[in-house]
């Protein structure tokens, strides 16, 4: 078990390092931050002096090695635009991102599980059709369109909920709902097909042959096995939500990390881009490590293999 954990952690470190490396080199192609940091009319000399100060005139590989040595010491560099440690800027935004991602996951998972179950257990009936149509629509609707519609309807028309920003629970509802719809749709579809697969398994027939009550069969024999792929998917969706809710964060003025990174991309604030993406990668990897461990609860075979 310890060895398993260690090797998983090593894999995680490799993944984070890989992400970091890719981001580092892609950002170097991104352009020149100096032109954006200095006011209009700055002279060529001033621009060059700033590049020097930011260490951007050195060869890229040298910058990379320097950056890695800094990271090992826990220093993620100074943000160009905030004049503060980049990791500090990023960490500040983390709670907002986590709040949104978790609310969306929780909401989406709950509704997705219910909808998927309803669809699977009502194979061929109207309920299945309705769930599947909604799930397909949920996956087929661009998020920003949905978000703007929600704002127009719930905030402007009805005045029930704030249009954006973060603060009270009310602020979380719309963005979380927007994201949750996609999550819910994916989970519902996956769970439905997964349930249908499990329902065909021989051991479900055995359970019926034992005369068990339908509830018992569903909870103990069907649900648990059907959840395994769903759990994998939740891990991946979580990754998408951590970094990928950029669009939702933009529409709802949500001060999350995705938005921050976009802003940093616009401003060519390399240290913030790097720190932000790295943090997301780190959290993603950590969550998936946890999920890996939860497999053990769902499936003892995996537990044993460690």
């Amino acid at each position, binding site marked *: 078990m310890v060895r398993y954990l260690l090797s998983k952690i090593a894999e995680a470190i490799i993944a984070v390092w890989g992400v970091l490396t890719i981001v580092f080199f892609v950002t170097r192609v*991104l*352009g*020149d*931050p*100096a*032109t*954006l*940091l*200095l*006011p*209009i*009319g*700055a*002279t*060529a000399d*001033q*621009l060059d002096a*700033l590049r020097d*100060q930011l260490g951007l005139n050195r060869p890229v590989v040298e910058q990379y090695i320097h950056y890695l040595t800094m990271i090992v010491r826990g220093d993620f560099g100074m943000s160009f*635009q*905030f*004049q*503060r440690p980049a990791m500090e*800027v990023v960490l*500040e*935004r983390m709670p*907002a991102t986590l709040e949104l991602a978790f609310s969306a996951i929780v909401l989406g998972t709950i509704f997705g599980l219910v909808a998927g179950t309803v669809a699977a257990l009502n194979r061929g009936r109207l309920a299945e059709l309705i769930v599947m149509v909604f799930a397909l629509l949920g996956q087929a609707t661009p998020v920003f369109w949905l978000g*703007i519609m929600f*704002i*127009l309807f719930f*905030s*402007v028309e009805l*005045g029930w909920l*704030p*249009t*954006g*920003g*973060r*603060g009270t629970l009310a602020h979380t509802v719309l963005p979380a709902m927007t994201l949750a719809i996609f999550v819910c749709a994916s989970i519902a579809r996956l769970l439905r097909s997964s349930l249908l697969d499990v329902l065909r398994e021989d051991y479900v027939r055995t359970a019926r042959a034992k005369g068990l009550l339908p509830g018992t069969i569903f909870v103990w024999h069907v649900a648990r096995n059907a959840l395994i792929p769903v759990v994998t998917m939740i891990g991946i969706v979580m990754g998408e939500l951590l970094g990928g809710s950029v669009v939702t964060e*933009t*529409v*709802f*003025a*949500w*001060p*999350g990390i995705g*938005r*921050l990174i976009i*802003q940093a*991309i*616009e*401003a*060519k604030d390399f240290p913030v881009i790097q720190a932000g993406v790295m943090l997301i990668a780190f959290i993603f990897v950590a969550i998936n490590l946890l999920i890996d461990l939860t497999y053990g609860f769902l499936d003892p075979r995996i537990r044993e293999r460690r």
Partner: protein
Amino acid sequence: QSADSVTIALRVAVNTLDPHMSASVGSDLSVISHIYPALILRGPDLKLQPSLAQSWEMVDDNTWRFKLTPGATFANGEKLDAAAVKWNLDRVLDKDVGARIAGWFSLVSEAVVVDDLTLDVKTSEPYPAFADQLSMFFLLPPEWTKSHNPATETMSGGPYKVAENVPGDHITLEANPDYWGEAADFRRVTFRTIPESGSRIAALMAGEIDLVTGVPTTEIARINASGEASADSIDSIRMMLAKINHQKTPMENRSFRQALNYAIDKEGIVSAIFDGKATVANCQLLSEPYVGYNPDLKPYPYDPEKARELLAESGVDLSQEIEIEVPTATYLQGDEVTQIIASQLQEVGLKVKITEIEFGAFMNKQLRARDLAQLAVQGLAWPTIDADGMLTMFAPGNVYDYWNNAEFGAILDKARVTTDKDARNALYADATRLMCDEAAAVFLYLMPATYGVSKRIEWAARGDDWVRAFDMKPVQ
């Protein structure tokens, strides 16, 4: 919202609260202007107003003298005297600090404390725009700064102090009880960051915010019709133009450049895209508020026939592709305008390709790679509203310049050292005429400064980017 508070929407988040580390008027400096004092401020009418400096004058060509308001202090009691101002100027010029706005003051050679309330600033060359530049220069408390990080912490010396700062979301200010100047109308001011234009307007309509700027012109009528808020627009100081890269064929050809100016229906764009709420450029980069504005120039009329003639005359091979670059989502409806320009150029027989490019990449191309496309739609504004700054960007040797016209450069050099107002204006008139005749750029229109305000407040709309609570008043 309570009656004595106001909420303002910003497009981008506040990055730093250090006044010397940002030149972004629309966000950082606007918020900072509530917290820290400035010697001089610019009013909504775009005229300079005394603030900490009660008066200022040029004592000689190379010396400015400022008289300060007595009794001004920071909230921690630090005195706001000549020494404090000097300390701030020194800080900006200190290489180790690396102030981002250092470039504004590169002509300043030293600040001399004459007495507590008098400060002399010596410049290496005559610097007529210094006072205008100071309207963007805010002062930190010297002692406090030594032990604090001004990027995130504040010590108020202005009308407001920071009550709450949630990075990326909002920053809330409340009135500074110790303010030495005139107290503001609103006790609380909140700046909320709302990046998405549609969401900003929705927030205005939902009554969550009191002021948004950069409203698409088509939305103005709708906002007004809704009765929830009102919207309008005035001329800004930002001139939209299609910058020409004279280094690329066929842009070195004057007839060709003129043809471009004739081919574009500026009036049509203004009326169709901006509902008539923008003003067509008078064949120059400057508009009325600018020092050095040339009232005698008239726009190239829309004359596609003439344009075709000129094109034929120019002898340019029209089958080559003319690329137009435009930074994405940077200028009000800039992408739409670009598409119209493209189709109008096609109308007169050109082959046109649009490239939308992210603003940072655009700047990189313009300044670092120096490889702009033949045409680049952009807006230029010089925050001190001064011809020298604006025009110098087209003078040879400047990083922004793609024209490389020695004659133009010589006129500007001369104007810069001319202290006599009329003589200077005459020189600027020559410079702008030259630019117009040479069709050094495709002059378009003044970008409208659009805004929407809630029914609760009155706002003195302004053509530059400042958004300030003290330009607002509650509606009685």
